[in-house]
């Protein structure tokens, strides 16, 4: 177990170092997310009350679009340099690769969300600060669910033709519970949970995370074989 985590953290360290050297990925992600927020505002119109009502949904769609772009990079950079083959050649459980890449995605998405929520709060005139605790929990559960399925499908599609198209095609239907759960929970938090539905959404997100994490971890070695 500790061996697995040691290997995973080595991969995480390598990915973060590569990212820190260029900072290309994160700056492109942040600009893209900001653009998505602007596009939503343009599409819906300068009606702040309406934008505020839709804020939960808009933020999560922005996170998922941006996250999908960054996911396709996670394994592609490896693929370009032939790194996947090398990673696989190391002894030990290949699941460490999934865990390491998953951790890397979580770090990147957390940075994104720390900046995206305040930006959306300003643009859509929503005050997130009074609800910080529950929002953090929902964001963590939603981001984890997105990252586990996303990292998994990113590894699956990396060798395929037309992978840029293929990844969202496989990923988005699998993410529907995350979208509904995270958006539902965020909306309830912002409204002050008048119907007492928040706990249900959080449970849904948590059970999705657990089920998908177990299944993806179990089956991951199958997609890495050659």
């Amino acid at each position, binding site marked *: 177990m500790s061996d697995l985590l040691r290997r995973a953290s080595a991969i995480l360290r390598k990915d973060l170092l590569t990212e820190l050297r260029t900072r290309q990925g994160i700056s492109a992600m942040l600009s893209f997310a900001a653009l998505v927020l602007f596009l939503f505002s343009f599409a819906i119109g300068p009606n702040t009350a309406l934008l505020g009502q839709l804020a939960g949904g808009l933020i999560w769609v922005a996170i998922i679009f941006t996250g999908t772009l960054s996911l396709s990079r996670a394994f592609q950079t490896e693929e370009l340099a032939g790194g996947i083959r090398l990673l696989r050649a190391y002894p030990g459980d290949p699941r460490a690769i999934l865990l390491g890449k998953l951790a890397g995605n979580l770090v990147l998405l957390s940075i994104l969300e720390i900046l995206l929520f305040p930006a959306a709060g300003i643009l859509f005139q929503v005050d997130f600060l009074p609800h910080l605790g529950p929002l953090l929990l929902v964001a963590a559960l939603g981001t984890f669910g997105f990252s586990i399925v996303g990292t*998994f499908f990113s590894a*699956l*599609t990396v*060798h*395929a*033709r*037309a*992978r840029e198209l*293929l990844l969202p*095609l*496989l990923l988005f*239907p*699998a993410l*529907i*519970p995350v979208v*509904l*759960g995270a958006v*539902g929970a965020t909306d309830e938090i912002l409204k002050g949970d008048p119907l007492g*539905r928040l706990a*249900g*959404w959080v449970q*849904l997100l948590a*059970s*999705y995370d657990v*089920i*998908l994490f177990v*299944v*993806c971890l179990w*089956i991951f070695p*199958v*997609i890495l*074989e050659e």
Partner: protein
Amino acid sequence: MKGQKTLGLVSLVGVGACTIFALFVLPPDRLQGEVQRLLYIHVPIAWVAMLSFFMVFLMSLLYVVQRKLKWDLMALAAVEIGVLCTALTLVLGSIWAKPTWGVWWEWDPRITTTAILLIVYIGYLIVRSMSDDPDQRARWASVIGIIGFVQVPVVYLSVFWWRSLHQPPSSPRSMASAFGTVMLLSFVAYTVAFTYLMIRRYRLAQKELAIEMRGPEEAP
């Protein structure tokens, strides 16, 4: 080969008989009128669709455990039947819903989950077409076959909760005995037809694979 022909004949007679019963023998529904006859096709086809996706799940699991290509070919056969039947279910359901509910589409958890399943398994077929290596293809497909099925209850539940904000989903009415009998017969007939299609598609997939392995020149 003989058994296969018999099975085909049985499916044809069974599905044909059910269609004749549904169209001409049974009286029109008291509330819904003639349009209700669609349900004798819609409901068993929806059943076959779900059965197919369950088969895909089983075959994918078997492939992951045993790594025999035959399981992958069976999964492929089941997916193609499943995608066809899911699409038919949605189209027939829409045609039935327009005069009955007044709308083509309703965000009911069952309908929404069915539509999501259709997209998932179309994705499955597209992924297959993206690889030329039979083993790689089988590995990718089996993974999607398993995850696609595992997520069904969670997807259903999430749509159910999302919907409960608006109005409860419609529930099927209980049916009179003659209707129930024909419906039961349809289930049997369509399941037999499913088995027949599975066998035919599986045999075809075997031949396709053999040609792929040998190259077209050497094929008989």
